């Protein structure tokens, strides 16, 4: 049985983890600004207009000026209180996995250039450094072992000054004489990181009860035998696993001997090794002040909370006497590569071993290619049975092998998520999906935009297109006949959230001039341009947002003079969440937040605790744990999995809602009810649900509008709720807690809540604000999503479709995108430019994935430390139809639509569309990505 996630034991009472006090001052925050001048989000110009629409990103000016926004921009002299001298470090790595590592030889360096400190595996052992779970296998390779993977770090080298570091690095770089290798030895081996199977047999209709499914019954896990999954025999009345296998065997038999009126598609799709190529490479800069036992740590990460917690755990048992950790997360960029990344721990160690000097560990691009998180190949065997009469899909069987690289990281989860996304937008009456993530000697693989769904759904769209061709039916018509409708069940047997508007998008696509006229257009363009072949392709996908274990946190408060500040756990990695979250506050406060601190992880007021792994905890364990009013299923989400608009937004909006209900509304009623017999409010029926913010002022049922500033002042005067910190938990639905808030009992979709009362509150009330200035409330009761929901794997979806026009050059085989149009449905749009920006950027990344990006998996690949952008081809503007591309966002069903996440799904349909367009252009179906000129040429010329 595999354990895909990390287990956590952490206590955040008083911000102490494993005995180490933690405080956070994100680089852009006011707390940081109090240290010295720069502010990332204090805008010298207004970023929203009178109607509350964002006219710029809240971080726009700083970013346009190249200000020190990234952790990578920071040097010791930028940090108040740090020693001025900046040290620099690098990691030596072993690249030959067939030979024993026998140490390293720095004699190439003169005496002057020798490092000032060297850290190896034996130092870590001697000093009691315990790398966190999941990253703990030989973080530095001990001598006498084979490397686990190509590029396995063996030592950390530290220099006190830049110049000697620079010169030494120039000599050591690309030099294969530095690492000493001994005898050939058996390669490192490991069991697969994870193996999963999802079987479903639906009922008579998609809405009837399932015969068998993951959610209703069970996911299937194999035994591992000889490092491969070994499935037992199916038994129709055996245990749940045996039942599932029985149904799977039935399906397999039918696919092998199908009835005459079935078409069975049976092909293999393969993807390539890809690299996120975030332009800010992994980096950290830290100073360990031994006198006070304080580690100050500037770091680039998508999961600052996890980094703090795990760094504390790593250092607590050591001899260094770390008492306090001051984290400074920067604005960053990652596309997944800075989530759950071992790099940060090496950076923390560089500081610890710095001998009292700040040390910076920052990858250059060669090093980033060598160790940065990748996504390795998916090898997918797809079988789809289709009824030839009515074109309905009958059985979908997809079995895939996922190369998981040299460390486990998230590959097992990626495999599972990929498998459960393969159904894309189709209803499948029966399905058998299996995925295994294997260890390999490739570079570490983990989270990267798409998270497996890019690989599987693009293949599904290629498959459906080819099936349509074999059935001689329009490819969009075939999709319409099998489209997933609201209320149907997915391949795990779960019902997706809300309205699915896939058929709307298909209808629009079918009517698009380029699709309708593609045959005639091809004839014309091919005749006019004999050097090229023209083609049109379409694809549509829906992807989940969220991980099934989301834990957003937000804190919102306003001063008596109406200044609103928002603290949020999330990190802005370019998504613009700092802007959108600040804007969301206006839903309930009538105006956006004046300032926002992202990457905030100081939540002492909530005193949260957790235990176990939310993905595998049993229902009984969860029930028992929930008796502790401080216990939550997960402490904090990283910024990943497209979770900012919906999940981060949930915390922000719920916090704002609490302030409205318990602060602003009673203040408004107090103002309107002033005077004899309930004042001017009395004659009317005034209801909270009729409240509206019009031009920044609150009115309801004919009451005179009051400005937010006036309300804020009144709320403070009356000692109402003027600040709140909230935590939520989502396992495909929200945990709900009952809280007594300022005397009023209320059920909210939150599992932890702390409030602040206004300046005018009585002493007794103020005395309750004992946790970091907050009054921590106990849950009166709590209703948590059942653990069985883990088997749903996904319920929140956003769809995107892309129509693409390409030309394939007969001479070179190169496929070029000449134009594309996309449709996107995301419920409520918070800031349209940010949504469209994600689409534009995601499509570019998808074009790279389909046509350009590739690396060898093992030898000759990036693990040897010589890769850069000359060999790894990134899409440029000329590859993306930059001037002509178009897109439309479907209008929401109503103003109360949730804001759905789209940052990953935007990348996927274009990949399938391009492959389908190449098929239209050339008449050839290619199934291995990327479609390089060499591959297309070979297909064309045989």
């Amino acid at each position: 049985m595999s354990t895909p996630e990390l287990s956590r034991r952490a206590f955040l009472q008083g911000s102490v983890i494993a005995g180490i006090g933690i405080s956070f001052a994100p680089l852009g925050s006011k707390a940081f600004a109090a240290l010295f001048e720069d502010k990332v989000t204090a805008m010298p110009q207004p970023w929203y207009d009178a109607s509350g629409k964002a006219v710029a990103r809240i971080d726009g000016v700083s970013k346009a000026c190249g200000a020190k926004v990234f952790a990578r921009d920071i040097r010791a002299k930028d940090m108040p209180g740090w020693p001025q001298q900046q040290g620099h470090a690098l990691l030596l790595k072993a690249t030959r996995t067939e030979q024993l590592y026998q140490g390293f030889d720095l004699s190439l360096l003169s005496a002057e250039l020798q490092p000032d400190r060297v850290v190896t595996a034996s130092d870590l052992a001697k000093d009691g450094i315990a790398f966190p779970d999941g990253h703990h296998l030989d973080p530095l390779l001990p001598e006498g072992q084979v490397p686990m993977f190509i590029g396995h770090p063996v030592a950390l080298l530290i220099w006190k000054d830049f110049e000697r570091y620079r010169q030494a690095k120039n000599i050591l770089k690309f030099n294969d004489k530095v690492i000493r290798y001994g005898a050939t030895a058996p390669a490192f081996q490991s069991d697969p990181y994870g193996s999963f199977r999802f079987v479903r047999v639906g009922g008579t209709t998609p809405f009837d009860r399932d015969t068998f499914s993951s959610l209703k019954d069970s996911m299937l896990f194999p035994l591992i035998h000889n490092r491969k999954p070994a499935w037992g025999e199916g038994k129709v009345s055996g245990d749940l696993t045996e039942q599932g296998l029985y149904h799977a065997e039935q399906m397999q038999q039918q696919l092998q001997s199908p009835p005459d009126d079935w078409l069975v598609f049976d092909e293999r799709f393969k993807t390539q090794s890809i690299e996120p190529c975030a332009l800010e490479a992994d980096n950290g800069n830290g100073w360990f002040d031994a006198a006070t036992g304080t580690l100050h740590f500037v770091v680039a990460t998508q999961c600052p909370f996890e980094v703090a917690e795990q760094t504390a755990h790593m250092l607590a048992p050591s001899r260094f006497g770390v008492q306090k950790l001051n984290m400074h997360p920067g604005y960053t960029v990652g596309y997944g590569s800075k989530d759950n990344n071992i790099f940060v721990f090496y950076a923390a160690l560089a500081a610890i071993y710095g001998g009292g000097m700040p040390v910076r560990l920052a990858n250059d691009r060669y090093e980033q290619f060598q160790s940065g998180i990748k996504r390795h190949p998916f090898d997918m065997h797809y079988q789809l049975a289709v009824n030839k009469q009515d074109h309905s899909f009958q059985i979908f069987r997809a079995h895939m092998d996922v190369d998981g690289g040299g460390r486990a990281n998230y590959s097992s989860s990626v495999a599972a998520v990929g498998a459960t996304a393969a159904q894309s937008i189709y209803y499948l009456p029966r399905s058998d999906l299996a995925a295994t993530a294997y260890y390999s000697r490739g570079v570490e693989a983990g989270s990267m935009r798409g998270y497996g769904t890019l690989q599987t759904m693009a293949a599904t769209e290629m498959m459906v297109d080819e099936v349509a061709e074999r059935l001689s039916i329009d490819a969009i018509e075939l999709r319409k006949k099998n489209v997933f409708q609201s209320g149907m069940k997915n391949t795990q047997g779960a019902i997706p959230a809300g309205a699915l508007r896939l058929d709307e998008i298909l209808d629009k696509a079918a009517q698009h001039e380029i699709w309708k006229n593609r045959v005639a257009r091809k004839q014309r363009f091919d005749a006019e341009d004999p050097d090229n072949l023209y083609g049109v392709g379409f694809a549509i996908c829906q992807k989940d947002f969220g991980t099934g274990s989301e834990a957003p946190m937000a804190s919102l408060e306003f001063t008596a003079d109406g200044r609103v500040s928002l603290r949020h756990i999330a990190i802005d990695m370019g998504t613009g969440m700092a802007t959108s979250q600040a804007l969301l506050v206006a839903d309930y406060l009538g105006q956006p937040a004046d300032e926002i601190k992202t990457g905030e992880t100081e939540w002492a007021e909530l005193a949260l605790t957790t235990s176990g792994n939310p993905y595998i905890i049993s229902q009984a364990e969860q029930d028992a744990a929930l008796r502790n009013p401080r216990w939550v299923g997960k402490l904090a989400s990283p910024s990943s999995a497209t979770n900012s608009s919906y999940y981060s937004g949930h915390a922000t909006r719920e916090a704002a809602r609490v302030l409205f209900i318990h602060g602003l509304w009673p203040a408004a009623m107090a103002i309107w009810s002033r005077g004899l017999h309930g004042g001017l409010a009395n004659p009317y029926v005034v209801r909270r649900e009729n409240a509206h913010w019009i031009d920044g002022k609150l009115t309801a049922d004919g009451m005179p509008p009051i400005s937010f500033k006036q309300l804020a002042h009144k709320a403070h005067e009356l000692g109402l709720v003027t600040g709140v910190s909230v935590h939520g938990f989502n396992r495909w639905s929200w945990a709900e807690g009952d809280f007594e808030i300022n005397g009023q009992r209320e059920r909210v979709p939150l599992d932890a809540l702390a409030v602040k009362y206004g300046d005018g509150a009585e002493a007794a009330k103020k005395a309750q604000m004992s946790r970091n200035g907050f009054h921590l409330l106990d849950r009166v009761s709590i209703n948590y999503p059942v653990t069985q929901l883990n088997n749903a794997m996904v319920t929140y979806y956003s769809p995107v479709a892309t129509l693409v026009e390409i030309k394939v050059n007969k001479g070179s085989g190169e496929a070029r995108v000449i134009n594309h149009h996309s449709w996107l449905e995301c419920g409520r749009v918070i800031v349209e430019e940010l949504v469209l920006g994600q689409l534009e950027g995601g499509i570019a990344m998808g074009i790279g994935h389909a046509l350009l990006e590739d690396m060898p998996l093992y030898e000759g690949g990036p693990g040897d430390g010589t890769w850069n952008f000359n060999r790894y081809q990134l899409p440029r503007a000329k590859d993306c139809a930059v001037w002509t591309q178009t897109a439309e966002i479907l209008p929401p069903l109503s103003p109360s639509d949730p804001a759905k996440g789209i940052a990953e799904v935007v990348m996927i349909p274009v990949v399938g569309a391009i492959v389908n367009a190449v098929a239209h252009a050339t008449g050839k179906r290619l199934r291995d990505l990327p479609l390089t000129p060499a591959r297309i040429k070979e297909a064309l010329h045989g």
Partner: protein
Amino acid sequence: MAKRILSMIINSQAVGPVEVPDDLMMIDFLHEHLNLTGSRLGCGQGVCHACVAILDKADGTSEEVRTCITGVHFFDGKRVRTIEGHAKRDAQGEVSELNPIQQKFVDKFAFQCSYCTPGYVNAATVLVEKLQRQPVKRSELEGEIEDALGKHICRCTGYVRYYSAARDVVESLGLVKEG
């Protein structure tokens, strides 16, 4: 390694004379000696163009130079502008006015993470200055922008808003002529 003395003007301020290793790349000088970290290291090998600074030549023209592969001593006696020098600042050092390109990039949501933004600002600034000397025909405008920005890599945005913002700036500054 040997050291040599150099002087240059960066963002209109004199730098040096100062002794600097003869093989130091300009980007390292900017980052580690002057703490001007806005010219960012993307690939360090001259491909991505995130690191470009503007070289103001004696003949009055300007061009972008990749600081990651150009030695610092190349700039000895020369005038350079980095991203940090474009915005106007008040006495406290706070930004009081962005240059037209920066302002347009902000107004048009042209960037996301912004790691590559300084390079784009510099490339677009060089383009605008070129067109100020010689306006471009409308029919050639997109081509000019492609030439100016085409080598810059951005991984977040898909380039769309950088390009359309550049076009907007050029048009709004009146640098487009008939044809």
